[in-house]
């Protein structure tokens, strides 16, 4: 793919108009006030029929999953024959990108780019809810669990949060994880604190990732995920934390204290064999990482639009600053970054279209490059605007604060680097 198709451009223009009419006039309120972004997100999803598409796709997936479950139940006369893992791996195949899916992928990526021109935070809040949280439930949940929780997240009727990070474990998410589940009768008792959780303050549905405490050493414990619902006894959702940027995405802490749940809240409704559930989390990371490239592209495009205009109109020493070579260098480098990120995004769409999934290392490389490039472009944009660049009025200030998070969440730059290197050095 070398450029957007006519159909993509129709989508882009429609979303752009929506953003200009519904988001831009409320930007001040969303970015600097206490208004959560959820009503605007819902309006967008409904306006563009994204909920309708999600419902139709979900119905198809569930029908398929039910067939598989039935086939498997019929196949194994002995109930121990069907392992949770084999069920999971089969399902992942059916959810894997199918050939010709590039267009559908592009149609999801375009709104991400357009929203990121003004509001990378909204993309994050939406992505975590409909992408990460619903994705985790769909990948690991039973049909009953998917029907109970995933669909409402996909349509944004409910807001989701996905909680792995803890005060003591971020990059080493699994290794340092302290949150636990202990068996208790036919259910579990959960404990732990989670931090930096997107949508944490307002989430209706939370995927809580913890370790099964069977009296063994923490590093050896199996990783399990539970679905929690807002209002459960023992669950505290804090107010949004103050942060550097991404103000349109509420981030909070979760405290889980002796929270009792039934087995129906354990994703998969079966304890995994050994480290099986870590694979699921890895998949989730992969998706998140390709989303970051689309956000980076949106941020870079917007910086360039603002900078080109400013370079033409801002006059110093009797000339538009665009006539100074040092300013030209900034613009040219921004364009190179924009082309590179766009190529990565196009390649990603092309791969999906061919029914292929990027490898973990490829997704890491894509995230690393796009996040760094976006940050560099934003810093240069602030510089190009001079004092105005430092002032909130000129928008590059906000984009610059927002872009920084791309290098931190979904795995820091350093972690991406080590994962890319590890795959290069592996035999």
């Amino acid at each position, binding site marked *: 793919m070398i450029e957007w198709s006519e*159909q993509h451009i*129709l989508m882009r223009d429609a*979303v752009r108009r929506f953003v200009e009419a519904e988001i831009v006039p409320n930007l001040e309120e969303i970015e600097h006030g206490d208004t959560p972004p959820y009503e605007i997100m819902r309006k967008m999803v409904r306006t563009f029929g*994204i909920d309708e*598409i999600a419902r139709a796709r979900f119905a198809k997936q569930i029908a398929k999953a039910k067939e598989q479950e039935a086939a498997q139940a019929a196949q194994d006369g002995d109930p121990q024959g069907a392992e949770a893992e084999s069920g999971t791996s089969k399902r992942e195949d059916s959810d894997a990108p199918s050939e010709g899916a590039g267009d559908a992928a592009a149609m999801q990526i375009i709104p991400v780019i357009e929203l990121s021109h003004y509001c990378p935070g909204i993309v994050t809040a939406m992505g975590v809810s409909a992408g990460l949280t619903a994705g985790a439930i769909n990948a690991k949940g039973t049909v009953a669990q998917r029907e109970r929780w995933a669909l409402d997240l996909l349509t944004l009727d409910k807001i989701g949060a996905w909680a792995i990070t803890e005060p003591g474990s971020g990059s080493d998410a699994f290794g340092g994880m302290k949150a636990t589940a202990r068996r208790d009768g036919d259910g579990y008792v959960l404990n732990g604190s989670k931090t930096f959780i997107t949508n944490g303050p307002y989430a209706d549905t939370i995927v809580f990732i913890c370790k099964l405490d069977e009296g063994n050493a923490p590093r050896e414990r199996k990783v399990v995920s539970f679905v929690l619902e807002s209002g459960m006894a023992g669950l505290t959702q804090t107010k949004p934390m103050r942060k550097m940027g991404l103000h349109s995405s509420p981030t909070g802490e979760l405290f889980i204290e002796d929270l009792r749940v039934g087995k129906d809240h354990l994703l998969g409704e079966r304890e995994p064999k050994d480290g099986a559930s870590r694979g699921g989390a890895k998949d989730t990371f992969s998706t998140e990482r390709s989303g970051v490239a689309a956000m980076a592209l949106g941020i870079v495009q917007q910086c360039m639009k603002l900078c080109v205009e400013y370079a033409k109109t801002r006059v110093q020493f009797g000339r538009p600053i665009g006539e100074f070579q040092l300013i030209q260098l900034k613009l040219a480098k921004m364009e190179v970054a924009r082309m590179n990120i766009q190529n990565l995004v196009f390649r990603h769409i092309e791969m999906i279209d061919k029914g292929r999934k990027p490898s973990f290392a490829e997704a890491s490389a894509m995230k690393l490059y796009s996040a760094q490039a976006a940050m560099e472009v934003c810093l240069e944009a602030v510089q190009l605007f001079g004092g105005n660049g430092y002032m909130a009025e000129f928008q590059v200030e906000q984009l610059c604060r927002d872009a920084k998070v791309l290098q931190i969440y979904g795995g820091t730059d350093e972690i991406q680097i080590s994962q890319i290197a590890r795959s290069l050095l592996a035999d």
Partner: protein
Amino acid sequence: MKILVTAKRVPDPESTIKVNSSGDGIEEAGIKWVVNPFDEIAIEEALRVKEAQGDAEVVVVSIGPSEAQEQLRTGLAMGADRAILVTGENLDTSAVAKILVKIVEKESPDIVITGKQAIDDDSNEVGQMTAQLLGWPQATFISELKIADDKSSAECTREVDGGMETISVPLPALITADLRLNEPRYASLPGIMKARKKPLEQIEAASLGVDTTPKIVIKSMAPPPAREAGRIVESVDELVTALQSEAKVL
């Protein structure tokens, strides 16, 4: 019920317009093209009538360059059922009206809805001329449309100086849409996906057997004079004097 709506390709109202080097048109390079905003309102109204009536068909028509396909796709993505593109160059309003008449004769719709005017030339003529040539009743600048239960007539509210006028037109009729008729929807994702598969028929203007020789020739175009910088006056007296003697508005 069949509704025919128009979708003219016009420059985005947000784009900066420059006069071309020969001074008889605008510089087209780099311009973003959109559906004429009043036509978008017309399309929205047609879709609302369809949604209310159930068994209606909406046909969207554009007359102009072959690139106007893009505008027709927008109409289809909003929800129109099929599209007709009549290609031709250098067509003035009377030529466009004559072509539209041919399409109406071919399609025999119950209602034709056009925008009250196109935002590029602001002629405000095509709807009226078409109704005249067809010998159809017309309701122009409407801000509300109600189809009678027996579908034999339409009640139209028009904005007139200092108030509203409600008229009833027997169908078939031609209607032109004003700004307050509705707020057009955004093309939805399923709408956009479906639009590609909807039929888009192309017809050459020359094949319709109408005389499209322009009656209007554009001699020259000039941008409006650049606005002069404002001036802060010291007192009310100075303001009144300036308004009287310089601006000559008092």
